[in-house]
């Protein structure tokens, strides 16, 4: 064998013929490509799904997946480029419509293409980590159309222009807007955000910045708020109509910032229409609007609250310090109640019953009510007035409402013990003169005070009611055991427990003989049934009904005080009496006597006495006669004493002093209670704790506390620490 022959010997590689027709792949692809063209040209009715699906399947099966995929990308891209051109060519308003139409076409085509290429989508694409057909279609649309130079800016401007037109009152095609915005969202949230939302927010900020500037120059506060609210609602509505719901927070933030936050102070303080004016005029609607709008921005509510508080404190301060107001306590308290009612209804109607506003209201009231030291007295007087006469013909519920309101004011008082003092005085007068209108109302108020301040606060007040009840029983007993007294004058004694009542010891007068005999009988009866007691007459607090006959035979029944009765009885035995004579006979204290004579001689319609000389004031040298010419339409005539309802200055001082006096043991008791449990405490802490303990009754004065501590040290309840002088020790 030669070498050449050897060289001729060749082994052909085995040809592995997978595909019979080498053009198979191209042919199949042509069919599919044609189908894609037909789909885009709305000409799909002639296509056989089964055939196309099978062809695509076969291409993938025979490893032409890549050719198929690349072919798809190329074909779809070329179609999208054409679409891009025709969309660019659309004129004016038809641009969006054209884009929307093409987008719908593309979506439909994409779905059909995906159907044909389903097998590729399912098997080939995941294994080579390519983009699935649907997503590919969206990406190509985004890159070829939405992000093409000629469309991107135009689309954005068109959308923003439409929004602007809608804001300026034109009607736009919201459906179309919705479709286009939906398209941007379908292309991915980043497309929506970058290509629309971001510029939209910027343009909106600019728009509202200008508009708010314009409004604030020419509108009053209420109108401005109305406009802002309208704009805000419009934007919220816009979001529901055609934007992504996630945009709502963003766009409302823009409106809030531009229209409210940036102009907040100017709005609140706007002259003639700002917050203060709204409060003054009870503009619930405007206030509510302001509350709801300001609530949306940081510091909005606190701004309203601060302005309201300072206004409230200012007006409150004026109210309680206005000397005109101080003349009529009932009016004064009524004003406070009206003010409170006004703000309560503002808070409930306009401020959503906001707790922080309620707190601001309470602290303001507490602040200014206590600016006037007479507030406790006035509140008690108000109650007195209501319980004397004001509650007649008022239903039980209404009584409760009024009492509840009073309790509210009472809660603001720091010096509750002062109130108690006055209340006791006023209650005593009411009870003794039988002037109280409703026993239920009285008791109801006591119960309220009790729940507010505890048993201790009201125990004496309740004692007064008990005394009244017991006295009735005593009187029945007295007359039962003395049947012979039926014809003479009738005596009604109210036995008052010392300490429970604001009695003044030692003030008494000479009673007429008839009366004093009766009084003696009662005294012996009473002391006979109750041993070990002492009775003293409080003639200054009594009343009497006496029958009188005047010159022409007119008969009248006079309702007078005990003092007045004493004076009048003198005239049974005399026609003329000098002041001195009266004073001597009755021994009524000068001030009281003068007042009592004045009320009988100088008040028109009640002048049962005649005075010489005729003057307004009572002089030491005056002489008095029975006024024969006295006439009255009524049979019964009530002769009131000329009393200053309010306390006079010296009386006030006296009450004050009594209050201070009463506080001393309370402060001491508190100190001892605290020290007993703590054993050792420094000065500042004692002050703090005592103040806290007594808060419900009054505001303890630190100097007074200090004095009490010193007094307790003197009495060996406490001692100072030998090393640290600031420390106190409790001595058991």
């Amino acid at each position, binding site marked *: 064998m030669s070498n050449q022959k050897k060289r001729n010997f060749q082994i052909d590689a085995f040809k592995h013929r997978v595909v019979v027709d080498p053009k198979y792949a191209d042919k199949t692809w042509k069919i599919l490509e044609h189908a894609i063209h037909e789909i885009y040209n709305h000409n799909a009715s002639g296509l056989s799904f089964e055939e196309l*699906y099978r062809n695509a399947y076969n291409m993938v099966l025979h490893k032409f997946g890549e050719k198929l995929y690349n072919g798809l990308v190329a074909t779809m891209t070329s179609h999208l480029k054409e679409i891009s051109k025709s969309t660019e060519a659309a004129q004016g308003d038809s641009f969006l419509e054209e884009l929307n139409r093409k987008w719908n076409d593309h979506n439909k085509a994409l779905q059909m293409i995906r*159907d044909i290429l389903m097998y590729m989508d399912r098997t080939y694409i995941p294994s080579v*980590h390519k983009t699935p057909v649907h997503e590919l279609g969206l990406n190509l649309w985004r890159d070829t159309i939405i992000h093409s130079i000629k469309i991107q800016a135009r689309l954005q401007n068109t959308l923003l222009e439409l929004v602007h037109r809608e804001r300026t009152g034109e009607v736009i095609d919201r459906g179309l807007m919705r479709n286009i915005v939906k398209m941007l969202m379908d292309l991915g949230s980043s497309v929506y955000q970058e290509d629309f939302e971001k510029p939209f927010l910027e343009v909106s900020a600019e728009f509202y910045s200008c508009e708010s500037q314009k409004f604030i120059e020419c509108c009053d506060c209420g109108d401005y708020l109305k406009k802002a609210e309208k704009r805000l609602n419009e934007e919220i509505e816009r979001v529901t109509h055609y934007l992504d719901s996630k945009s709502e927070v963003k766009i409302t933030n823009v409106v809030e910032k531009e229209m409210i936050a940036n102009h907040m102070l100017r709005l609140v303080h706007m002259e003639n229409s700002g917050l203060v004016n709204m409060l003054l005029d009870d503009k619930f609607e405007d206030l509510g609007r302001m509350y709801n709008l300001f609530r949306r921005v940081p510091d909005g509510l606190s701004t309203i609250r601060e302005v309201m508080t300072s206004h409230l404190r200012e007006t409150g301060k004026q109210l309680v310090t206005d000397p005109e107001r101080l003349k009529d306590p009932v009016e004064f308290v009524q004003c406070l109640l009206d003010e409170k009612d006004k703000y309560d209804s503002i808070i409930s109607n306009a401020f959503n019953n906001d707790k922080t506003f309620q707190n601001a209201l309470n602290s303001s009231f507490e602040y200014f009510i206590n600016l006037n030291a007479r507030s406790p007295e006035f509140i008690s007087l108000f109650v007195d007035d209501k319980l004397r006469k004001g509650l007649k013909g008022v239903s039980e519920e209404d009584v409760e409402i009024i009492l509840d309101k009073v309790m509210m004011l009472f809660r603001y008082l720091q010096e509750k013990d002062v109130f108690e003092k006055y209340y006791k005085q006023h209650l005593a007068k009411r009870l003794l003169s039988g002037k109280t209108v409703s026993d239920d109302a009285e008791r109801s108020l006591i119960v309220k005070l009790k729940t507010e301040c505890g048993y201790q606060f009201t125990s004496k007040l309740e004692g007064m009611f008990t005394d009244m009840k017991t006295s009735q029983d005593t009187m029945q007993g007295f007359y039962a055991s003395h049947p012979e007294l039926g014809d003479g004058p009738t005596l009604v004694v109210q036995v008052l427990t010392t300490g429970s009542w604001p009695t003044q010891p030692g003030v008494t007068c000479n009673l007429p003989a008839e009366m004093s005999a009766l009084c003696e009988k009662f005294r012996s009866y009473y002391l006979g049934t109750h041993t070990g007691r002492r009775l003293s007459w409080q003639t200054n607090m009594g009343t009497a009904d006496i029958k009188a006959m005047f010159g022409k035979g007119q008969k009248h029944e006079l309702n007078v005080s005990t003092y007045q009765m004493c004076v009048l009885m003198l005239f049974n035995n005399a026609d003329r009496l000098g002041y001195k004579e009266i004073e001597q006979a009755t021994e009524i204290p000068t001030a009281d006597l003068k007042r009592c004579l004045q009320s009988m001689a100088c008040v028109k319609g009640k002048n049962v006495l005649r005075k010489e000389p005729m003057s307004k004031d009572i002089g030491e040298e005056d002489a008095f006669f029975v006024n024969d010419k006295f006439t009255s339409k009524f049979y019964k005539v009530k002769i009131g004493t000329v009393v200053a309802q309010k306390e006079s200055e010296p009386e006030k001082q006296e009450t004050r002093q009594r209050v201070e006096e009463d506080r001393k043991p309370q402060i001491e008791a508190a100190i001892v209670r605290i020290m007993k449990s703590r054993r050792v405490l420094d000065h500042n802490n004692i002050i703090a704790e005592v103040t806290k303990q007594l808060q419900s009754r009054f505001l303890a004065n630190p100097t007074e506390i200090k004095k009490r501590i010193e007094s307790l040290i003197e009495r060996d309840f406490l001692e100072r620490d030998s090393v640290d002088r600031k420390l106190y020790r409790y001595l058991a």
Partner: protein
Amino acid sequence: MKIPKDKVRFNVGGRIFETSSTTLANSGRNSFFGALFNENWTLKQPNNDSSSNCEFFIDRSPDCFSVLLDLLRTGDLNIPPDIPERQLYREASFYGLLDHVRSAKWGQFDGNRLRHSRYVKGQAPGDGTAIRAGPDGGCCVAHGSVVHVFDWIMEEHPPLNLDYQRVNDVGWVDSESIIVSTCEKLGRGDGGMGLFSKSTGELRFKFQVCHENQVKSFAAGALSTSSGYKIFSSCKGRSNEYGIGVWDQVTGKQIDFFYESPGWSLGDADKLQWLNGSNCLMVATLFPRKDNCYISMLDFRDKRMVWSWSDFGAPITVDEKRVRDAVAMEDNNAICVVNEFEDLGFMDLRMNGGSVRWSSRSRMMKGKLSEESCCPKLALHEGQLFSSMDDCISVFCGPDWVLTSGLRRSYGGSICDFSIGGDRLFALHSEENVFDVWETPPPPIS
């Protein structure tokens, strides 16, 4: 008689089938039939007179169509003996019904109802390292330096290798991706760890360990993944990079490293298990170079070992109990361990430094171990505990872990590894290169 309006007539490869569009609707929108009946495709609808011979032509095998049509009608898969399974799967794939076939083929996993479905024999020499069940019913088997990949049909895909280095562990990241950890080849930077595509076998990422901004070559050991797209692996480098590495499975970048504390062989770990509830990784080093076993729980957020156990200093008794595998049971706050005699032991995760409570269950196996036997393995699946010993897998249930089932098939020698996933259990035998597939049959008819 009225003719139902939704009657549909098919000509499949020459045979006429009649069915209803409601039946076909069971195939879902993402299938051949779903697309066919979509309004986009203006079907040449047969005229309403039933005598017309209008029908849809499909150029496919009628035999398989019949089986699949039945599947759509009843939900049951019945393959006549004369149809090769592969052919049926091929047709199902064409129609987009493969998922329907897959879910009809076997039922929801229950360790006490498992049936042996088939076994698969491989050509590679014995010495299987690990078998891992995939989420969709497939599996992968590591043999020496190659990983063989099977889909749920048990068709083999191109095998995976990382520079033909010895494979230490494999794991599924998702139904498309597999991670492989291998020994390193000294000085060459080969080996390490890689992520592969299941279907094509191509390498997608190679994971790296950086130490002081320098890329180091390393040997990767045990693997674990977390639901937060993290991959954990025990790493052995030559300098300081012993410990547990953490990578992001989406980017393939290293995101964390837990350096080994002295005397604690994290880099040698044989088993890692991520615990979702407690946000910890269990690391078990059971066949260390040194003599002791270590199990610890690592919290990566503050780089802390929150729980640890070691058999260091434990008395060596006659019936020595060495821990051979461990599995954390989060719901029970315990770690279950097994020794070479398949005794189960439990440790309380709520207290540190406790000891193993061995269960008294004794198989009287001591001293009877055959020389070829493999170490027992443990697995936990939905409240059922599995352990392998020789050629049998035991199933334990209930709060006291009562033995309820035994899975045994006397072929292939003892079981060296097993894995549960995709509602299947795979058991790899050590003597022959063969693995078993266990499935739960579909639920009973009524």
